[in-house]
């Protein structure tokens, strides 16, 4: 089953071709693509102006996968959650191609797509490799700029939210911390580089909701405030590179400790007996220290951690949308939805 997948849920304009769980191509528009041939049209640099980029991204995805519309069986498109005006562009495009080539559309939940992104496999691998890891129930953790969510998937399409953020997402908290430290935006990745050179225990920042893990809530507003206060105080004395590195390391360490403690509490007190795997997706997965933290946690509880195989699958992308659409069709069937019923759902929740 070959799928053309589209994701325009927020910042990125993305398209991909997937075959079952295999990623045949995975294209994300970037500033760098500007230097590539653009057919004479120079798109606006505004990040979220998907309209100008979507055609190029789709044709590139098809070309890179060395396929054509005659081989594509369905179109998968993200319908939510996300920014309404952004989602709309991808959905409109999906409908256009659906009409033109008489292809069914599979609407996809962006968070669900992140959740199963570890199942995506490289096009050079055997088909079964990805799917063999999927045996329900599994735990899922989505950590990105817009989401911080720990769930239990009883089966495909049936989720129990175990913990989610009550204010900021983890990726957002890292970006904001980076900005406060003067590291620019988006700063999560830069923060990680500085943190690597710093001492995570140099500053004692309060671990959010410490001692209240049983509430099963993530929260980053207090940590942000604490960092702000600490920076203001340091500025009065001196804020050199070493201090910035130490602050970055301490902040990042505390942010990850919070995730660790909440999930650790759950796995220690009321784990699901049959769940032995944790799928992790979302942009923060790119952070090595984060992966180390999660691996340590999984080891302690004797469950296996699965991360996406490629960096391009961490942040928003369309390959995960194609894979998720395939899984939906495989597990639930009837995933094709009448065009007229497909609409953007900016505040879509997990079922």
């Amino acid at each position, binding site marked *: 089953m070959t799928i053309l997948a589209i994701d325009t849920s*927020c910042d990125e304009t993305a398209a991909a071709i997937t075959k079952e769980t295999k990623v045949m191509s995975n294209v994300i528009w970037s500033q760098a693509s500007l230097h590539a041939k653009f057919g004479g049209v120079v798109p606006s640099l*505004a*990040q*979220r102006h998907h309209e100008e980029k979507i055609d190029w991204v789709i044709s590139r995805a098809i070309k890179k996968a060395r396929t054509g519309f005659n081989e594509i069986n369905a179109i998968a498109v993200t319908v939510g*959650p*996300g*920014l*309404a*005006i952004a989602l709309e562009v991808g959905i409109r495009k999906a409908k256009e191609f659906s009409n033109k080539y008489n292809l069914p559309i599979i609407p996809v939940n962006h968070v669900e797509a992140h959740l199963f992104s570890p199942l995506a496999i490289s096009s050079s691998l055997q088909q079964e490799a990805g799917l063999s890891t999927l045996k329900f129930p599994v735990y899922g953790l989505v950590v*990105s*700029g*817009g989401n911080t969510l720990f769930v239990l998937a009883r089966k495909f399409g049936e989720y129990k939210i175990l913990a989610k*953020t*009550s*204010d*900021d*997402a983890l*990726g*957002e908290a890292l970006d*904001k911390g980076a*900005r*406060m430290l003067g590291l620019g*935006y988006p700063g999560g990745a830069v923060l990680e580089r500085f943190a690597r050179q710093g001492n995570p225990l140099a500053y004692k920042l309060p671990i959010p909701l410490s001692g209240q893990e049983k509430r099963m809530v993530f929260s980053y*507003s207090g940590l*942000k*405030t*604490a*960092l*702000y*206060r600490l920076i*203001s105080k340091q500025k009065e004395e001196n804020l050199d590179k070493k201090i910035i590195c130490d602050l970055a390391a301490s902040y990042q360490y505390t942010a990850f400790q919070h995730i660790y403690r909440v999930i650790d509490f759950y796995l220690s007190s009321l784990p699901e007996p049959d769940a032995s795997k944790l799928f992790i997706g979302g942009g923060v997965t790119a952070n090595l220290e984060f992966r180390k933290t999660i691996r340590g946690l999984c080891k302690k509880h004797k469950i296996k951690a699965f991360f996406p195989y490629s960096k391009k699958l961490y942040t928003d992308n369309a390959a995960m949308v194609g894979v998720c659409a395939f899984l939906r069709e495989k597990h639930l069937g009837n995933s094709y939805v009448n065009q007229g019923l497909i609409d953007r759902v*900016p*505040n879509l929740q997990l079922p």
Partner: protein
Amino acid sequence: MKIQKIQNTSIDSVVKTLESGGLVIMPTETVYGAFVDATNKKAVEKLTKFKSRPFGKPYSVAVADQEMASRYVFLNKMAKRLYKNFLPGPLTIISKGKHKVAEGVESESGTLGIRIPNHKFVLEVVRKFNKPITATSANPSYKKRPYSVDDILNNISVKQRKCIDLIIDAGELPKNEPSTVIDTTSEDLTILRQGDIKFSRKNEVVSRSPENTQNIAKELWQKYEQYLGSRSIVFALEGEMGAGKTIFTKGLAKAVGVKETITSPTYDLEHIYYINGKRVFVHIDTWRMQDPEEFDDLSFDKRILDKSIIVLEWADKVHNKIRRYAEDALIVWVKISYGKRSNERLINWTTL
């Protein structure tokens, strides 16, 4: 449509045009205004067509003096004091109406805004006409403020042009602000739009915990809740990272009746919540916007027209963009700043 120089125009000819249901554009001490007989239903409908704004948004009216005003509204003590001190002048005073004007002039809740323009020509017209005339700026909704006849004509369609019967041209007007709008129908005076007349007041409280901040938001909501349904209510929040803008929004949302957990809209830019499946609570964050122009992509016009409740974080970034809506929305500017002690926040607000 006729354009006449002000020095060549007789008061009588303007009065005649108004009497026959005509739309007259005249200069005032603020901007060019569009005037029709406020007691003539057809004339008011024509004006609404010209302004191309939805039915149900009230118009203020111009009268010649306080005596004439008292025929159309109930003047309480506060209003009388304001009339005495500031009128004629660039101030619109909202009072409880006597329902003697055409439908659509008073607000849905039956209030009426009255103005006595400090402009000799207009005052003479109203005095002679001896009935209130609508006093609204002569630009269509959200278009440039009209300081010259060209400002008006360059921004309207042929259809809108056809609505105009007479334009009194007084050349380019000095760039004065539109009138300040004050509501005297509630217990304490509320400024709905800030012009050149300023009423200063200090609204500041100290919060000592996140719960405290949420309660302050709730109290602020109760203060302005009465405008719900008559216009959009915008809470424009400013404050540094970690100051508690999202916490404040949580309190506001609870008071308004949002059931879901409010989380930061930083990444998605905008979160939308429905209250009882109907009224919309919009939570916007401009932090990630590289350019204030991105704000225009969010269909803010529509949210204002829908009379939504809107909370904007990092409002300072789009200050000028929000100001454009000062006529159609009640804008509450809220600033949250760090206090001396670690858990302290100073919260101050203003509708100016």
